[in-house]
């Protein structure tokens, strides 16, 4: 196997490993729109990274985190609905990012790579970033797994069981920011939410436990990467969209198979 293909595979599978367990919470907590907002805001991070020379992943994670905190803070302002706040901050940050990139002498920057990913161009450093990010995400989720499920079912009941619900929300946002920063190389800002949302939803019809659903999400996400890359390689398709499309195909399959499974 060619080395760039190896790196692309490792990047994609690394992301799938983190996106599965995190994505189930995104789906359970109905936070898909939140993930999307963070991903759009990530473009400001790209712009910051380009003009300041800061590390790109750190800049992206920083901006995602700032947006997450701003949105949380807006919770205390009942006159601004949460979904509107998300739209304002994410698209505001994205607009600022696009303008910054345009002003920064630019033109040389390939924004498409950040919008839709360029996993075939991933270097070993990207792979290292993704796998360290994944390790952090998996360790944190493993540690809080039961508490988070508890709080997802009912925050009041969980808090009586000793779960710190506010801290849980914050950690969850941190992790989402981290995964967004790590995944931007693989599928790009526009398609990150797909990796968080499609595999868990496709795994749902076959799952009877929360753990099963997370494992299913990892398997489906993990299978989408090599298949998408294969399609991308053979038919010269853009790699990020190819991966997402394979995942969407698995979802369609799960709709049909899941129905049959229930009927029998």
């Amino acid at each position, binding site marked *: 196997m060619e080395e760039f293909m190896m790196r692309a595979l490792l990047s994609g599978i690394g992301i799938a490993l983190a996106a599965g367990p995190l994505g189930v919470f995104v*789906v*359970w907590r*109905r936070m898909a729109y939140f993930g999307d907002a963070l991903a759009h805001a990530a473009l400001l991070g790209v712009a910051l990274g380009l003009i300041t020379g800061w590390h790109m992943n750190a800049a992206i994670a920083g901006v995602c985190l700032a947006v997450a905190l701003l949105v949380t803070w807006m919770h205390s302002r*009942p006159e601004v609905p949460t979904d509107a706040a998300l739209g304002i901050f994410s698209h505001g940050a994205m607009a600022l990012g696009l303008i910054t990139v345009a002003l920064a002498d630019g033109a040389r920057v390939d924004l498409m790579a950040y919008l839709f990913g360029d996993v075939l161009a991933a270097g070993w450093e990207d792979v290292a970033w993704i796998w360290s990010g994944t390790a952090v995400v998996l360790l944190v989720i493993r540690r809080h797994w*039961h508490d988070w*499920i*508890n709080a*997802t*079912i*009912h*925050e*009041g*009941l*969980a*808090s*009586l*069981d000793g779960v710190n619900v506010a801290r849980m929300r914050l950690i969850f946002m941190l992790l989402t920011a981290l995964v967004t920063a790590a995944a931007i190389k693989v599928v790009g800002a526009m398609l990150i939410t797909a990796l968080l949302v499609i595999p868990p*939803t496709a795994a*749902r019809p076959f*799952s*009877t*436990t*929360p753990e*099963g*659903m997370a494992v299913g999400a990892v398997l489906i996400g993990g299978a989408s990467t090599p298949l998408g890359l294969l399609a991308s390689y053979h038919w010269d398709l853009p790699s990020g969209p190819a991966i997402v499309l394979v995942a969407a195909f698995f979802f369609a399959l799960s709709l049909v198979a899941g129905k049959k499974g229930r009927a029998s």
Partner: protein
Amino acid sequence: MTKQVDPGTPLDSGVVLEARGLSVSRGGEFLLQDVDMVLHAHEIVTLIGPNGAGKSTLLSALLGIIPLSAGRVNRKPGLVVGYVPQRLRVDPVLPVTVARFIALSTPGAPPPLEWVKRFGCDPLLHRPMHALSGGETQRVLLTRAMSRNPDLLVLDEPAQGLDLAGEEQLHGMIDAVRRERGVAVLLVSHNLHFVMAGADRVICLNRHICCSGSPTTVRATPEFQLLFGDKLPGVGFYQHHHDHQHTPRGVVREQP
């Protein structure tokens, strides 16, 4: 620490929880103002009040789920609370069985078989939470609450969504638990019969405490009449002579 910082008065024996000057505000508006109340072991206290009176808010504040804006809540040291929230709807996207849901509260402990049997949850254990009916959900919540072996059981309109028989059964269970375990019970109820017959004390809430006392004392107050006045004659178990009329808006008017 000097005397100026109030360390919280030690609770009298038999008191499981007390609130002093408890206030909760949101957006500059008081949801609850200056609430004082005490709960004793072995006692069933019902909380009544119109919609928007702050009943659920008061429960959440007493349990420490939401922050107070003034006042304080003193709990008996080591107090264990079992809580049955007003509404629990588990999203069908989350595949979690009844057994798992109960176990989330007491990780590592064996399933509370006694309570599972008692509340008729054994056939439900392997069912997904989202597929339960309203009554089944209430029984599961009660099982989960009792599995913690609580000193205080807090129930927010536990009879919601139950038919009359289910409601009676539920109230019987609550009463039995109190008698056997000496658990203090605080519940929000709209069931007049239970308020009158089952409770030791009634607290009438409308953002502040309007009245409180034994059911018979509270029954005589205008606040109570306002809440239940229209229901009283029809229920049948409680006969009373109407010495006044109600205007269409519910205001009590002395009979001429």
